[in-house]
């Protein structure tokens, strides 16, 4: 009967509803099961403990490298410099924006006993939070990479890579927070660049009165806590061990910054929009007087046609303001990728050569990379190249270099994403007109909940 057929047909097209997600999930599980049934046990025989971990039998063959699309040029640059090495470059999402691709895949490879990549780039700093206990990450400071090379990385830049004194990754770039500002406007209006947060707050209120519509910062990004709360030494993310974290966001270190943000949001000189939102680019072009943000704001927000597109010779950077009475200056950090080496790799020599090269002095880190290199000698050349472009109103080298060593170490790198917790907990309230101070207890609860669901012991 024709009607019946058409019913079924139209239903399928209108909404392919029947268990789609379960099917996809099931299919993946089935494949995993099938593959694990086929694999006997590839690891085991011929392996030996060397360089601080049990190494797989080494063999010849192509080096498999996983990178995100931004880091493909890095792998290609290595290939160009090493034409004899066979590279198998695989592009993946780089675990950006809270994705968990690498862990999911490694989990499947662990079940099948084969398939791990040799080298991986991750856009996050927290892969050690699972990769060490999963036995995926190889320690690098136990013989694979000489101490002389490791000590060339900026102070504290290997903190996210370090678990119990062992270094499990190399930092690609730093994202230390500085105070970006428009030097031309500051000069024109006769303002001084603030060096303390109270000065910053006062200037923000002055700007709101004298030049309404102009901004001294924004608080609408998922990484807002990593700019302001981290710099304020707020104990929101004090990862004290592999599965322990201390969270206390109602302490004065947090409330002082929260109430500063509330004051300036109310005054109107602190935007509630994300710097990457269409509304920000459309409405705030030419209206940004100051903007605390990471090193990469220079290229990604100010000198970017898809961002604020500020003309040459106006933008400058200063050290991020400090709270009076802080003994050592502290700043925050927004991202910065890491290079990982698989403990299962059968091509360790080539893998070590690869990650030493991509993080070190070379065509990639000196010129191509968009972020501030974590490897100090590379950073020097990179900064010189930035200065050559003549975009900035002042020489930003000393500011960025100084900030690189001042990232507050009390903010750790857990498995849970502080960015998505802030986004889901604080941002909707801000939109609805609530103050950040009033939402701090909810933030505490949310961090505790997410950390607990990832198996963390949370202490207040």
């Amino acid at each position: 009967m024709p009607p019946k057929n058409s019913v079924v047909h139209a239903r399928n097209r209108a909404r392919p509803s029947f268990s789609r997600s379960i099917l996809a999930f099931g299919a993946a599980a089935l494949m995993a099961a099938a593959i694990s049934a086929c694999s006997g046990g590839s690891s085991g025989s011929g392996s030996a403990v060397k360089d601080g971990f049990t190494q797989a039998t080494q063999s010849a063959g192509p080096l498999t490298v996983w990178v995100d699309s931004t880091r493909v040029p890095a792998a290609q640059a290595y290939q160009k410099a090493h034409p004899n090495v066979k590279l198998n470059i695989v592009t993946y999402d780089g675990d950006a924006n809270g994705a968990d691709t690498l862990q999911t895949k490694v989990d499947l490879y662990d079940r099948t006993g084969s398939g791990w990549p040799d080298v991986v780039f991750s856009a996050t700093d927290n892969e050690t939070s699972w990769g060490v206990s999963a036995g995926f990450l190889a320690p690098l400071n136990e013989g694979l990479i000489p101490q002389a090379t490791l000590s060339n990385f900026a102070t504290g830049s290997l903190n996210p890579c370090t678990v119990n004194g062992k270094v499990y990754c190399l930092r690609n770039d730093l994202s230390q927070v500085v105070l970006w500002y428009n030097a031309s406007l500051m000069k024109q209006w006769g303002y001084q660049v603030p060096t303390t947060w109270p000065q910053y707050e006062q200037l923000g209120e002055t700007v709101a009165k004298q030049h309404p519509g102009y901004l001294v910062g924004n608080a609408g990004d998922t990484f807002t806590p990593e700019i302001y709360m981290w710099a304020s030494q707020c104990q929101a993310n004090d990862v004290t061990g592999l599965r322990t974290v201390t969270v206390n966001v109602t302490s004065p270190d947090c409330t002082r910054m929260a109430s500063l943000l509330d004051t300036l949001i109310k005054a109107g000189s602190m935007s509630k929009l994300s710097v990457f939102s269409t509304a920000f680019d459309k409405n705030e072009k030419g209206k940004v007087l100051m903007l605390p943000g990471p090193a990469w704001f220079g290229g990604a927000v100010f000198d970017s046609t898809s961002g604020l597109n500020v003309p040459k010779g106006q933008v400058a950077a200063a050290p991020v303001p400090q709270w009076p009475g802080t003994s050592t200056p502290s700043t925050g950090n927004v991202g910065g990728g890491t290079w990982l080496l698989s403990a299962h790799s059968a091509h360790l020599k080539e893998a070590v050569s690869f990650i030493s090269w991509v993080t070190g002095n070379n065509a990639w880190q000196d010129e191509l990379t968009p972020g501030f290199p974590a490897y100090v000698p590379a950073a020097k050349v990179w900064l010189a190249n930035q200065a050559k472009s003549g975009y900035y109103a002042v020489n930003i080298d000393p500011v960025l270099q100084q900030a690189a060593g001042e990232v507050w170490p009390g903010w750790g790198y857990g498995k849970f994403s502080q960015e998505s917790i802030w986004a889901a907990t604080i941002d909707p309230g801000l939109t609805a007109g609530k103050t950040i101070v009033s939402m701090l207890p909810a933030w505490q609860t949310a961090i505790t909940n997410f950390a607990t669901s990832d198996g963390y012991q949370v202490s207040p």
Partner: protein
Amino acid sequence: MSPSRTTDPAGARAARRPRPVKAGHVFVAGYVILLAAFGVLPTAYGIYYAFTSTGNTFAGLSNFASAARDFRYLPAVGHVALYLVIWLTFLVLFVTGLSVVLQQLPVRRIARVARFLYYIPGALAGAAGVLVWLFMLDPTVSPAAAFLRFLGYGTFGQVIEPGHLSIRLPMIAFWTGAGGWIVVMGGALNTIPTELIEAARIDGAAGWSIARRIQIPMIRKWIVYMVILAFAGGTQLFVEPQLISAASLGVAGRDYSLTQLSYDLAFQNNNVNYASAISVELLVVSLVVAALFVTRSRFFDAS
């Protein structure tokens, strides 16, 4: 069936019969194999996971209990329940209403054009339809920006405030899904013999009473069919909140539905067992509701 076939002598037809049966088996086999590989086996595998622990030992109902104790579980149940109530109500009322109105339109061409227009959004499969809505709901790029501002929404963040999602998501689902059902109901209404409608007219029935006493009762089974499938699809709410979450950088829509929670448990918290427990719950709920509807409406009784 073609007329030439019906004039075949009975004997010839009987002799030919085994061949179509064999061909039928071959056709069905393709489906059965795929169903087993990608439907039955994964479901069985999921059920196995739901009742075992990470060490592959039998865990009873502990995965279900632990998943239910997750802080995201109860809110997700609430979200999905509210979504189902709003969406199914809209779907049944508007799809039935619009279909009947279209069927009763005196000018058939208008009905045909309208039905086609309703169907167009459904042709944008799943995620693409949601993407269209993400643009529609962002006041900075939306063609309906003036209307959004009139409603008091200046930014995307305000439009998709978490409290608003219970209305936004059924809107999106209705827009992408209802057109297909209107076509289906149109087909169903076409099977009602015109003599019946004419007889009713002669007896003095007008539009509303024809709809209420003849058309709707006669397409009742199609409505039940729609509700069963829409319920199963609705409990698996995933694409809409997941894309809103991605577009808003996690401000709204993360862990909104049970399927999303299951996905996060499997791929963020690395706990396939809890994830499977939630999937099995959804399967059971859908089966029970489908069974209720089927038995209550005597769905499979010959009419």
